[in-house]
């Protein structure tokens, strides 16, 4: 009797401890997010003069100012142009390369694989000075084209590596059958391998898009305010201290959060889906 009630007591304490740890962890993780959201809903005077954990007056004014702000909209549009172009280009170029590396045997394959990996692991902070000189020489400084170009430095290696895994999961026999039916090699790639790797392609696309959308360092160095993707728009304002010091600018952050946030999570889901697709081997 006593032993069992003692055990029950220990169980209760253990449960209470677990819940306590969970609460502390959630506070640590969620407080910054909460603060960001709540500040974006406050009036400027409330943000600084009487800071509080709960706004006295809720306002959507910050968001309205943001949406009416031409520069913000231009930044969002530029981000969109850059990120989707980078995604498109690297998907096409990387699928060709990944297909070649998965399906064929040739002499410099190992070397090329290493080069791609090395490129991926080379820090952007090491590259940005020579890259900015290169871009300036090509007369692409302060243009979206230049930015698209340099973003390939990180998007190409990752896409190639990731696509290799997806392509390798497509059974070779399917392709051979297709070629017996009269498809060329490229035809086999476009008609058989790519459609079968669709979830993988989507995952890579979302991943690349997010990476380009969030990039800051290169955009900061290569682009001046007028065409900056939104990642660079805020910290690059001439008095960017003030960017944080006014309500509207602070509200800036929440809407940015959403578009980049969702695809990533969805991408993770697709990644899992991709795994399943690959595992159904004839």
């Amino acid at each position: 009797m006593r032993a069992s009630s003692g055990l029950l007591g220990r169980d209760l304490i253990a449960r209470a401890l677990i819940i306590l740890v969970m609460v502390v962890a959630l506070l640590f993780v969620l407080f910054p997010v909460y603060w960001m959201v709540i500040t974006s809903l406050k009036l400027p005077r409330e943000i600084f003069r009487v800071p509080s954990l709960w706004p006295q007056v809720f306002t959507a004014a910050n968001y309205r100012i943001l949406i009416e702000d031409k520069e913000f909209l231009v930044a969002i549009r530029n981000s969109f142009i850059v990120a989707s172009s980078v995604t498109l280009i690297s998907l096409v170029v990387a699928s060709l390369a990944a297909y070649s590396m998965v399906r064929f045997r040739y002499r410099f394959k190992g070397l090329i694989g290493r080069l791609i990996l090395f490129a991926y692991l080379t820090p952007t902070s090491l590259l940005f000075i020579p890259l900015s000189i290169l871009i300036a020489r090509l007369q692409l400084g302060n243009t979206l084209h230049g930015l698209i170009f340099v973003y390939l430095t990180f998007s190409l290696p990752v896409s190639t590596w990731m696509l290799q895994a997806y392509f390798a999961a497509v059974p070779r026999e399917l392709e051979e059958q297709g070629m017996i039916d009269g498809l060329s090699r490229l035809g086999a790639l476009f008609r058989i391998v790519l459609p079968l790797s669709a979830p993988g392609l989507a995952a890579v696309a979302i991943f690349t898009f997010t990476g380009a959308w969030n990039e800051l360092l290169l955009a900061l160095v290569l682009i001046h305010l007028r065409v900056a993707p939104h990642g660079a728009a805020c910290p690059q304002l001439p008095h960017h201290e003030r960017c944080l010091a006014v309500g509207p600018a602070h509200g800036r952050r929440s809407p940015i959060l959403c578009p980049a946030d969702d695809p990533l999570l969805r991408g993770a889901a697709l990644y899992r889906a991709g795994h399943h697709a690959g595992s159904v081997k004839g």
Partner: protein
Amino acid sequence: LSAEAQQQLFAYALVLPVVLLLAGLVAYPLVYAVYVSFTNLVVGGTGQWIGFANFRYLAGSPVFASAIWNTIVLVVISDVFKLAIGLGLALLVSQKIPARGLFRSFLMLPWAMPAFVAFLTWRVLYQPIGGGFNLVLTKTGIYPEIVDWLGQRSTAMPAVIAASVWRGFPFWFISILAALQNIPTELYEAARMDGANAWQRFRAVTWPGIKRVVIITTLLSSIWTANSFESVWLLTQGGPSDATMVFPVWPISACRRSALGRLPLSLLPCSPPCSFWSSSPRRSCRATRTSRMER
């Protein structure tokens, strides 16, 4: 042309675009950076060969020395915290706990957020006027005075580390959790039968099961933290008076007032992990692939 040779040509033709683009956009700039480090090139000027003068300058530069030290401190301390928090929470989530799925998704939130959003948010939290932390500390009476977290030398680095841990621990958490879920439960049952206590079970079953993942995560996380530009740039820009100056931030903060040759050179210490990793492409490719996905 034989069919075999034709196929070879075709294979090369397919990889060629990637090789050319990476040669032009990564290899060439890298070599150029090394060349520039031997010249006195400045923005808008033409450089002259000056031998090792830049290297000598850096060796004697106190900012460079503190950048080395700060980068090491940032990487080591934040990795230790990320490991502790990530491992602890992964162990917790692998137990039977209430609302597990929801809890897990909430924990991933910092990682799912774009870096610049995360660090700008932390910057607002640290503000002396209207900042969230000061509000909580003064309201609850834990610490009655207003602290300028990012503005004084003593607290700037811990503040940067805290933000970096917040943003980075979910990756550790999810990697370790995945490894934990691959450990067969029979092993735990067997250990329990043999009378192993919780600590012994951890040492004999859990740790061997997650060791590899912890090592790979440590390597990746160290590379990312050492090269992460956003965290320090958005929080302190390396200040106050270089207290948080790290490698990736130094060149851009010095960009306009220094000879270019000194800048890329300063970052060469960041690259050894690259060469180390490229020497084992197989293992690292798998690791990078999975981990980039988690991101």
